[in-house]
């Protein structure tokens, strides 16, 4: 049992290598349909180890169950240390372990990854690059499991960074289109910018504790000065903002929709964005010791949740709606953490993982059918896609926080935590007020955008004209009524936790807060419905009025960043190249030229004129004689 965490990490890792190296043999046999046999083999190589890892994760989570969410006394961690790496200062210990927190997250990661792997078999069945794609998903799973099970901060960082790499490779899967390539670069660079801060935060904690082991760092937290803790947590927060797509480093996530839809599900539900919330929960005692950091986190969360929800309300691309909703929901979790409850945040992370994965996979099925991401091309799909309609309805209900779907319970706990933070807790009053106000407003907006997406996709007149030739970056158009079974089975299975997971952590619903949130969500939904009802063909986003364009452009953050950071760096780069040529190398060439010039001067003496030489010799002799006479 103690080696289970290691096995769970290693299995998908080996699968990734095997998938990359083995799945293309024997080559050259399947000329007519590029690599369908290879794809089948790659699918087995990908699915089986992930399933095995899921079994291991379930086994690890069996004993603790939902202990973390129920706030029970922490049980012992199951795991082992596989040696230490001496660095000359603080050693790195290769510890992999599963405690209450890791155990439940491990289940989330492996199950969603498994669903995504199975779904991808159908979604990309004739993609010639499916083998590498599924191998990268395996690597992604392995990296996230490494983050979850790591008992050492630097080991965790390894997984943390490898995830960034995998997101780059997968978002850029359809690299023929340069826009996808740019989105992949953006995702990698923005998260890496945060990761540098994250690494420095690890340095501060590790330096202060004299160890990178998480258990030892947490044990030393009470002895650390507030200054150290604030510095460390602020730096860690940079990494959290990057990975979990929080303001101000959130801009990569909507663009990451360039990847295949299953990848969006993986990134948005189980891996990558979950890592940021997870690390705050993991090091929560350190964050609780740093009040200013919690305030910053609260403000970031408040801005992020409302802004992203408004942006989601104005998008036309179905996947971008879901992307902005991810930012918004993650901000909820961050707000819950800031308000002082790590178990409420993790609870929402779990339910969100289930229903967001469900929503993305459903969206994939819709896109698969329509051949376009745009909602203006959809409509009336509830007859064509009955299964997808039902499951996606469940997903939207959970997203909007309507009972009895899972999102209702977890969101209720978060709102309750923020409510309590108003009267005492780690936050300053202003931050707590802002957080709670934004959270309530967001509930209404969430109801609105979920309803809008639901109505525009499944109701109204069918506007579909299947595109004859699929655009790059979208799945192929198929002429069947529903998606293939490999796609439907994961969707149906995921809808079960999306409904039922809310009952997991024991039912404690605070009626007052619950009533307010349901009323607000219904209010938002009702307004959108009224607008839609008046004109089913027009976009209900028009209710935003003059705010619509700024919301659609996500408040121009991308443009501001491009003007503030990207262009100056490029200008600077050109400047450096010119400086290098003119100044630095210019000095080198200049010294070369001046040496040549000097030698040219000296050469004038060597003109072959014997008279001049003899005169020179005589002059020299004369000088020496005079010198000798004078100084002797």
């Amino acid at each position, binding site marked *: 049992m103690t080696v289970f965490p290691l096995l769970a990490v290693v299995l998908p890792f080996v699968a990734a290598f095997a998938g990359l190296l083995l799945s293309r043999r024997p080559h050259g046999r399947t000329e007519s349909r590029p690599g369908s046999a290879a794809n089948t083999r790659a699918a087995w190589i990908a699915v089986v180890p992930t399933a095995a890892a899921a079994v291991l994760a379930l086994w690890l989570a069996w004993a603790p169950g939902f202990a973390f969410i129920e706030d029970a006394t922490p049980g012992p961690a199951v795991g082992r240390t596989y040696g230490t790496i001496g660095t000359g200062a603080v050693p790195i210990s290769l510890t992999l372990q599963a405690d209450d927190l890791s155990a439940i997250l491990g289940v989330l990661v492996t199950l969603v990854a498994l669903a995504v792997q199975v779904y991808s078999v159908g979604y990309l069945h004739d993609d010639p690059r499916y083998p590498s794609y599924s191998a990268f998903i395996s690597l992604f799973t392995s990296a996230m499991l490494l983050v979850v099970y790591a008992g050492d901060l630097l080991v965790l960082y390894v997984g943390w960074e490898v995830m960034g790499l995998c997101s780059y490779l997968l978002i850029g899967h359809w690299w*023929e289109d340069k826009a996808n390539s740019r989105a992949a670069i953006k995702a990698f660079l923005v998260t890496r910018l945060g990761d540098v801060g994250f690494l420095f935060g690890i*340095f501060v904690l590790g330096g202060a504790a004299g160890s990178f082991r998480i258990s030892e760092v947490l044990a030393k937290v009470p002895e650390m000065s507030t200054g150290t803790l604030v510095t460390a947590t602020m730096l860690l927060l940079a990494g959290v903002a990057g990975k979990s797509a929080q303001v101000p480093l959130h801009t990569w996530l909507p663009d990451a929709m360039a990847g295949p839809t299953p990848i969006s599900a993986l990134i948005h539900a189980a891996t990558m964005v979950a890592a940021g919330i997870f690390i705050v929960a993991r090091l929560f005692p350190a964050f609780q010791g740093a009040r200013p950091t919690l305030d910053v986190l609260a403000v970031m969360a408040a801005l992020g949740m409302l802004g992203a929800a408004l942006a989601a309300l104005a998008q036309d691309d179905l996947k971008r709606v879901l992307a902005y909703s991810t930012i918004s929901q993650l901000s909820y979790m961050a707000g819950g953490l800031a308000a002082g409850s790590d178990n409420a945040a993790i609870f929402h992370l779990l339910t969100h993982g289930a229903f967001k994965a469900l929503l993305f996979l459903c969206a994939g099925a819709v896109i698969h059918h329509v051949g376009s991401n745009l909602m203006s091309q959809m409509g009336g799909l509830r007859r064509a896609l009955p299964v997808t309609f039902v499951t996606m309805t469940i997903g939207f209900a959970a997203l909007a926080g309507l009972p009895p779907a899972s999102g209702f319970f977890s969101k209720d706990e978060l709102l309750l935590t923020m409510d309590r933070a108003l009267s005492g807790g780690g936050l300053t009053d202003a931050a707590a007020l802002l957080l709670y106000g934004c959270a309530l407003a967001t509930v209404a907006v969430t109801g609105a955008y979920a309803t809008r997406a639901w109505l525009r996709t499944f109701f109204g007149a069918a506007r579909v004209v299947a595109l004859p030739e699929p655009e790059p970056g979208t799945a192929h158009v198929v002429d069947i009524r529903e998606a293939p079974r490999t796609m439907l089975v994961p969707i149906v299975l995921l809808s079960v936790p999306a409904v039922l997971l809310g009952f997991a952590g024991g039912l404690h619903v605070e009626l007052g807060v619950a009533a307010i949130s349901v009323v607000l969500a219904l209010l938002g939904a009702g307004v959108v419905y009224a607008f839609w009802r008046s004109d089913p063909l027009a976009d209900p986003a028009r209710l935003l009025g003059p705010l619509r364009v700024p919301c659609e452009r996500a408040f121009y953050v991308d443009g501001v960043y491009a003007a503030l950071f990207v262009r100056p760096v490029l200008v600077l780069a050109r400047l450096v190249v010119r400086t290098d040529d003119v100044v630095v190398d210019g000095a*080198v060439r200049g010294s070369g030229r001046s040496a040549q010039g000097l030698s040219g001067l000296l050469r004038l003496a060597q003109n072959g004129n014997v008279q001049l030489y003899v005169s020179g010799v005589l002059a020299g002799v004369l000088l020496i004689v005079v010198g000798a006479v004078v100084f002797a």
Partner: protein
Amino acid sequence: MTGWLPVALLAVPLLGALLLLVSPTVLRPWLRVYGLVVSGVALVLAVVMVATFDYGQAARPQFAIDREWIPGLGIHFHLAVDGISLPLIALTALLTFLCFVYLSWGDARGPGQLLRPRAGGARPRALVFTLLVLEVGMIGTFLALDLLLFFVFFEIVLIPMYFLIAIWGGKGRRGASIKFILYTLLGSVVMLLGLLLVWARTGTLDIVALGQAHGAGMPRAVQILAFVAIGVGLAVKTPMWPLHTWLPDAHTEAPTVGSVLLAGVLLKMGTYGFARIAIPVLPEGAAAVAPWLGAFAVVGIVYGALACLAQRDLKRMIAYSSVGHMGFVLLGFATLTTVGVNGALFANVAHGLITGLLFFLAGAIKERYGTADMRALGGGMLATLPHLGSVLTFAAIASLGVPGLAGFWGEMLSLFGAFQPAAGLPRGLFLTFMVIGGLGAVLTAAYFLVMLSRVTHGRPERAQAIPAVARSGASGVGGWPSDGSASPDSERSGWAGESPDSERAAWPGESPDSEQAAWAGEPPDSERVTGTIEGGAGGRVLRDIQGYEFAAWVPLIVLILLFGLWPKLLLSLTTPAVQTLLGALS
């Protein structure tokens, strides 16, 4: 008792080179095998050294041999190996061997085949001779434990590298080679002055004794002066900003094997000098100059990264990336901590592997497309040459420092060293360096990803993918869905050109005029065609990775993964040695 091993490591390539002089004609038909065998024997010796090294005492110089060389001057022929030099010696032997693999196994039409006689004169015998002499100098530098012996080997390297660039280089080879040799010679002269100053003050040239003395007998001012002098010499070689401008020119013009050895080994000699001589022998000087060294290092990191971002030529870009990576190495040294120096040495080896691979790849691209200009390459390499594109992606990702690959640990440890610099160094300043270095790491990622986007992504504009034309048989790595890392048949097809018969048969078709005829007359077991270049050399065919290229690159890929996943291999080797070197400081 085991002192024969370092001597043999030097003697094998040296005798190999001398034998070429003695019998110019006898060896001619065997030249390609000859270089391979000689460097292979050297590699075997290096492997024996790695295997028999006493890892329990990595700090102690092992396999020592100490003979008087010039008694009148007290110069000793003192060679030995410890935990710092062992990885570098193995790296040198490996890279040299891989260069010969690259040169020796391809068929005549393969890119970068300088050992094939062709019109215009490739001078194969001279090339083998040059490379072997180069190996003597490189290994000797890492073995020497006598200041002047070190200097002698340090200088020996320059001459073959000069010829390598000047004879087998690209269009601007003349200027580049002259700049290279004058610049580095100038640096060496300054270094020699520093070494002589140390000698004059202490009366000994023995590096071990000097290191154990920890600068005793030299007042602080002398130490600073000597450190600056030696440091400038080493910094030119490293290269440290702003003494780097010889590097891009040399790299751009050098032939593939020249670039690989230049980046993979020659730059390491500069940084090795810091670890071996400058810091342990002159600890007070090092402590005084360290903040400056760190400042130049981080400027180099950011400057190199920015220069890469605006670079258009692939080889030039990789050359500038070396400036940035070497900045991390120098930053590690400047911290004067065990962890920082460990990081520097790790980054050193990792850079040798990764940048060696990158230059192999850049060379392969340049040979295929006839240019390394990224705009002219036109993108879409993953579609036209999928394997080359994949390996390029791998190398770029390794170079930008993703954990799990070798590039990460060195940079991380260097930054951690800067987080806690040695006592006596200004911590605030080094924290600033750390932050700038971290931002430099982001910029490093930026330029590599932009390069990948330009070269490997997008639709191929210039090269038009044509439906795979299998001339005959479906062997080879050229096919789209095949992954050549496990393709024995393709390698066999690469080696098929080994037999003397087919070699001779290929000669007549080698003159530039009949090049196309040679293409048309491909032997039956040729690679599959994956694409053509329009407007290139008249419908010239692009071929994906060849067997000999794989043979040369796979060891590097494996080692990059190995050191990335198991950094302890290297760290456990360097840590005790570094602790001994820094004895006076920590």
